[in-house]
């Protein structure tokens, strides 16, 4: 159970940790979260609001928020920024056509005061698809190397196969400590 393991890693840190999953529609946020939680991923539909997963053990709690990425929902993202400890930004690495749009959304997140300084994990998702761009190529396109005001990391992954997800989250956990 991936989320429980993640919770256990947090045990020396804050008693409550809140992680936000954001990204364009169809980037794979819900699939990534379901996959991390060892849940089925064959029945996922576009998120029309939010999905929250809470894991608690003893006095420790992990809350992961996955907010829908459709254009009409994005203006509401800012309502969920408060109290966040870490940000996960999911990108469809196989959709070159929308990479610029994804980069624009990411840039506006980086300018948000409530998210200032928070560690950010970027999932270069859909690496199982032919034509998926490498993390380096995405980092270059999105100018990630220019980010100086927060720890960030780009992790290749496939939310579908689960590859890379745990590694990415482990990096994030180390930053929140």
């Amino acid at each position: 159970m991936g989320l429980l393991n993640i919770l256990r890693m947090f045990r020396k840190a804050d008693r409550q940790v809140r992680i936000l999953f954001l990204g364009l529609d169809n980037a794979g946020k819900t699939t990534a979260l379901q996959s991390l939680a060892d849940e089925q991923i064959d029945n996922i539909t576009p998120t029309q609001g939010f999905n929250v997963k809470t894991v608690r053990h003893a006095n420790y709690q992990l809350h992961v928020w996955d907010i829908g990425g459709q254009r009409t929902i994005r203006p509401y993202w800012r309502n969920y920024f408060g109290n966040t400890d870490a940000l996960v930004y999911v990108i469809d690495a196989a959709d070159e056509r929308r990479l610029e749009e994804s980069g624009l959304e990411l840039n506006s997140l980086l300018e948000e005061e409530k998210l200032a300084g928070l560690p950010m994990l970027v999932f270069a998702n859909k690496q199982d698809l032919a034509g998926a761009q490498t993390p380096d190529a995405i980092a270059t396109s999105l100018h990630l190397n220019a980010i100086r005001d927060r720890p960030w990391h780009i992790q290749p992954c496939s939310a579908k196969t689960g590859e890379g997800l745990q590694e990415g989250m482990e990096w994030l956990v180390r930053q929140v400590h």
Partner: protein
Amino acid sequence: MRSPTSPSPKSSPASSAPASPFASCIAGVRPGIISRPSGSVTSAAASSRAAPAPATSAPLPPGEDAFKIINIRIRDLETKAPFWTCRDWSNIKRTTEMHLPRKLLQCSSVAREFTFSSHNVLENLRLQQTVYLHDQPIEEWNFEFGFVIPGSTNTWESVVLAAAPEEMIPAEIISGNMVIDTAFYDGSALLARKRLTVFYE
């Protein structure tokens, strides 16, 4: 990381009683069923709020609830097998019985998931759940969702790890004597409330 005064989800045991891997659920009820001193109805209260972002949904069809619980699922997290699912909450009474298999008490972790929709924007959705045993509160669980997008469908899954076997309350004591009271509020306005009496079989 977080300042102690910040609003955040919290769980506080109402007493030192051991946690039970209880399964809880709730249901949408029509505002008219709920007695409130103000007499205001949920939909009017919510829609009168100023939304920070644009978008208002189309008018609600007559007879439709503005806030609805769509689905509730209680599962063993190890096997993923659902113990209990309720999909149609529109016609059930405010207090109902939930019959669960005894083997749920042996599960190391239980997941309860609910799916709900809101026609209106909500500024501060929160859930308050109290577990009573023989009318005495033994556990309280509060969760703050905060903002809810108008016209949205949302899910919350909460995974609870079971207490050690020696700390568990025996099924015979719980069955028929444990009531889970779940209420949804937007700020102080009650949106939906459900009391469930739990039976282990």
